[in-house]
């Protein structure tokens, strides 16, 4: 069979058309399509529902664990996760970065006689000088005394005295003032004062 191009194309077209026209699709096609669409929708809904159920169960379990203290303790012990401070461990020291709460440090009232006293909590008039570097005597609390009045505390040297060497002297000596009953429980805190300079000392004391 040899065909010119046009005849061959026409033969091809007619043959395909005749072959296609002989095919009659099933009349149930639309129902089959709808059934498949429905199955597909159910399948998608199933996974969606399963996911929501799992998420809900996890949420409820987490809520119960957090609300019941015993369970929470058990979970924290079993998982090794503990709340900060719950197991007796101290909280991290934030004294170097945070401000002291207002009202906790009593404001010392310095009388003209040079005997500081406090109405609320009598504390030693001077903190132990444990600074590692010599601090100028002007910046100390004792420097606020009027000239000529030397405080009785040996830790407050006169102004003309040379700065103390950088030897820590953790021996606080509370000032014996007759009007105040000081509690001899000085709490030397070398970590606080070790890094403070003179200006900070005044701020802490005030």
């Amino acid at each position, binding site marked *: *069979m*040899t*065909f010119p191009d046009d005849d*061959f*194309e026409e*033969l*091809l*077209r*007619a*043959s*395909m*058309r*005749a*072959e*296609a*026209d002989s*095919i009659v*699709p*099933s009349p149930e*096609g*639309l*129902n*089959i*399509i*709808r*059934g*498949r*669409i*429905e199955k*597909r929708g159910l399948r998608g809904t199933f996974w969606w529902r399963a996911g929501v159920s799992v998420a809900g169960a996890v949420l409820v379990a987490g809520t119960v664990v957090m609300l019941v203290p015993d369970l929470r303790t058990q979970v924290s012990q079993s998982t090794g996760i503990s709340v900060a401070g719950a197991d007796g461990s101290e909280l991290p020291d934030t004294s170097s970065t945070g401000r002291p709460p207002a009202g906790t440090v009593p404001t010392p009232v310095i009388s003209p006689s040079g005997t500081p006293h406090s109405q609320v909590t009598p504390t030693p008039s001077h903190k132990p000088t444990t600074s590692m570097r010599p601090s100028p005597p002007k910046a100390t609390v004792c420097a606020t005394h009027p000239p000529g009045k030397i405080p009785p505390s040996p830790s407050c040297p006169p102004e003309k005295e040379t700065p103390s060497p950088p030897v820590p002297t953790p021996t606080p000596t509370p000032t014996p003032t007759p009007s105040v009953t000081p509690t001899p429980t000085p709490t030397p805190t070398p970590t606080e004062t070790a890094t403070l300079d003179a200006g900070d000392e005044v701020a802490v004391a005030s």
Partner: protein
Amino acid sequence: MPPNDSEERKLPGSDERPTDVTTETLVADRSLGAVPVGWDADMAVTALYSAHYRSLVRLAVLLVRDVASAEEVVQDAFVAIHGAWRRLRDTDKALAYLRQSVVNRSRSVLRHRAVVERYAPKGLPDAPSAENGAIGELERTAVIEALRGLPTRQREALVLRYYGDLSEAEIANAMGISKGAVKSHTARGMAALRMALEQFS
């Protein structure tokens, strides 16, 4: 969705749609690819089915060579367009989407069939039917047999060109190739078909 529910549903605009006429020339009729905006997926699938199902099955038969596989391919394409209806940017191109889906799924069927036939025992060839006695029928059968022997891409290009009456751009879109590749596949397919028919005679 009950099966008989949507059949009784009256689609908007379905009165004007001459479905009985268009089903015979669906692939060539570009205007029927448009679906009114606002239709939901069920309505669109029903309208597209009534307008294009038969022609798409026939197109698929020419590609996959048996009616059952062709119907399954087209049904899968309708299910796919139902799922993708919300994501379909241009609903006017629903027919193009369906056609492309049919071509792609036909390729998958042929690929799967090639693997199966490679390992399955080969059966007897199809016996010629009684109506093949006429000269025209003989030619037609020879053409179809030669067409089935072509490579997939060449067969797709020829079927879309001479059965679907599609332009090169539409064929390129349906096959996912360039227009130059469409020309190449068509020319090679025609040459191979001509050679096969010459050997047949």
